[in-house]
C-alpha cells in the first residue's frame, strides 16, 4: 500500500517550503510555461545556455508541494548539464513517473519523487515542470504547455 510518508518525504517538503532557483527570471533566457488546467497549477521555467551547456535555470509560479518540489529539484539537477544530458535526464524522469523502465540515466536526488507514481492523479503535478523544461529547451519563449 502506498504511504503518505513516501509521497511527502522531508526533502520534498523542504523544497516546497524553500524552493531553489525560484523567481528572478533572467531576461536573456528561453522560457516556457506549464499549466495544469485540472488544478490550475502554473509553472514557468527559464533556461539560459552558454553554447550547449545550460548555465542558468530558474522557475516561477504557483503549485502544490509535488510540482514545486519537482521544479526545484529539477533546476538543481539540470544546471550545468549539456543540453543532450538534460534531455536524457528528462526522459529518465518521465520514465520513472510512468513506470516505463529505466533508460540508464541515474536520477540521483530526484529519486525522492518516486513515491508519486503510486498516486496516479498526482503524476502530472510532478511532470509539469519537466514538460515546461522541454518546451524551454526547444526554444520556448513563453509558449504554454499543458499536461492534458
Amino acid at each position, binding site marked *: 500500500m502506498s504511504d503518505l510518508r513516501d509521497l511527502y518525504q522531508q526533502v520534498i517538503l523542504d523544497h516546497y*517550503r524553500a524552493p531553489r532557483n525560484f523567481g528572478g527570471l533572467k531576461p536573456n533566457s528561453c522560457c516556457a510555461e506549464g499549466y495544469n488546467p*485540472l*488544478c490550475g497549477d502554473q509553472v514557468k521555467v527559464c533556461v539560459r545556455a552558454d553554447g550547449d551547456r545550460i548555465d542558468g535555470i530558474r522557475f516561477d509560479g504557483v503549485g502544490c508541494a509535488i510540482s514545486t518540489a519537482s521544479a526545484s529539484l529539477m533546476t538543481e539537477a539540470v544546471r550545468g548539464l549539456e543540453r543532450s544530458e538534460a534531455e536524457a535526464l528528462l526522459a529518465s524522469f518521465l520514465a520513472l513517473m510512468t513506470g516505463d523502465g529505466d533508460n540508464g540515466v541515474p536520477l540521483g536526488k530526484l529519486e525522492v519523487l518516486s513515491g508519486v507514481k503510486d498516486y496516479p492523479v498526482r503524476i502530472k503535478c510532478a511532470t509539469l515542470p519537466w514538460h515546461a523544461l522541454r518546451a524551454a529547451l526547444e526554444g520556448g519563449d513563453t509558449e504554454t504547455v499543458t499536461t492534458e
Partner: protein
Amino acid sequence: MTARAVAVGNEQRDSAAFEVERLRACFPILERDVHGHRLVYLDNAASAQRPNVVIDAVSDCYRTYYANAHRGVHALSEQSTDAYEAARAKVARFIGAPDSHEVVFTRGTTESLNLVAQSYGRPQLEPGDEVLLTEMEHHSNIVPWQLVCEQTGARVRAAPITDDGELDLDAFAGMLNERTRVVALAHVSNALGTVNDIPAVVELTRARSDAAVVVDGAQAVPHMAVDVAALGCDFYAFSGHKMYGPGGIGVLWGRHELLAAMPPYHGGGAMITRVTFERSGYMAPPQRFEAGTPAIAPAIGLGVAVEFLESTGLDRIERHEQELLSHTMEVLNDLPWVRVPGHASKAGSARAAVVSLVIDGAHPHDVATILDEQGIAIRAGHHCAQPLMDRLGVPATVRASFGLYNTHDEVDSLVSGLHEVRRIFG
C-alpha cells in the same frame, strides 16, 4: 470531551431533526471503504450519490419496458413515453412550474445554459448589447455567453462580489441599463455556497431593463425548495446528477411565451412537424428543444429522485445541512491555520452547505491527497470558477460540500483529516 462522548453527541445531533442513518441506508455506495476507511463523501457539489430507488428505477426501465419514446405505437414505446412524460410532470411540480410544457429535458445545466444563450440570446443580441453576469459564476454560466457575444458583437459584463462573497446588489443595479438583454447568475454559488437573492435581482432587473433573468440552479435544487414562479425569473437550469438523480439528464425551465418564440437549438428527429428539403416545421416546446432520442431512463430516474427529495422533505434537508454547516464553521473557526475566503462573517447571510477553505502552507491539491488517504472525498481546485478564484486572490481552494446523508461525525472526520495535513505540512 472524550471521543466517545463527542460521537454520542453527534448521534443525537444527527437524529434530533433527521433520521440520517435511515437515509444513509438508502445509498449503497456510502457503505464502501476507501483506502481502508469508511468513505466520507463531501464532494456533493461536484456530483451527489444516488439512492436505491433511483438506481432501481433506471434499471427497472431497461429490464422491463424500455423503448424509444414518442416514436412507436407498440406497447413498450407507449409505456416508455408515458414514464418519460410523467417524469417531466414531476419535475414541473417540483419546481413550481405552472405548466409541464415549460420543462425541457437536456443533458444538464451546461446544455441548458448553452440552449438559452443560443436560442434566446443569439437571435436578439446586437453589437453593443450587454449580458450581465456575476463574479461568482461557474464556467458553464460564462463561456456560453462569451460564445454568443463573439457571434453577435454583444459584450459580457460581470457584477462584483463583496469580500464576504456576496453579490454587491448596488453595483449590480448600477450596471443594469437599457442595453442589458440578459442577466445570468447562479442561485447558489458552487464554490462559496452563497445564496443569491433572486427575487431582488429580478426586481432590480425589471426596473432598469428588458433583460431576461437566467438562473443557474445547479447548486440550489438539491438543497432548498425552489419555486420558479415565486423567484420570478425567466429561465432556470439544473442537473440531475447533483440532486441524487442519474447523470446525463438535466432541465431547462423557461417561461412558455419565451420558449414558444425561440428557434430550435439542435435539429433532428422528434422536434419537427413536417420536413421537406425546402423547409421544416418545428414542434411546440418542449419537443422543439429535444431533438433526437432523449435520455429516457435517466429522465425517469430524475423523476424518482424528485420524489425522493419531496418525501424526505426539502425543509428538513435544508435544516440538517445548515446544522452541518454551522458545526463545520464552528470547528474551523478554532483553527487559526484555516481560512475560509469569501465566507460572510456577518449574520443573516444565506449559505448552502458548501465550504471553500485554504490551509496555511499546504496547497489544496496536497490537502486533497492527504484527505483521500483517509477516505475523505473533497474537491481541490478552482471549481470551474477561475474568475472567482482571481477575485478571492487564491489559485485554488479545498471545497467540502455536504449532502442530505452527511453526518456530524463526518464533519469531525474532516477536521481530523485537516489536522493530519497540518501535521505533515505544519
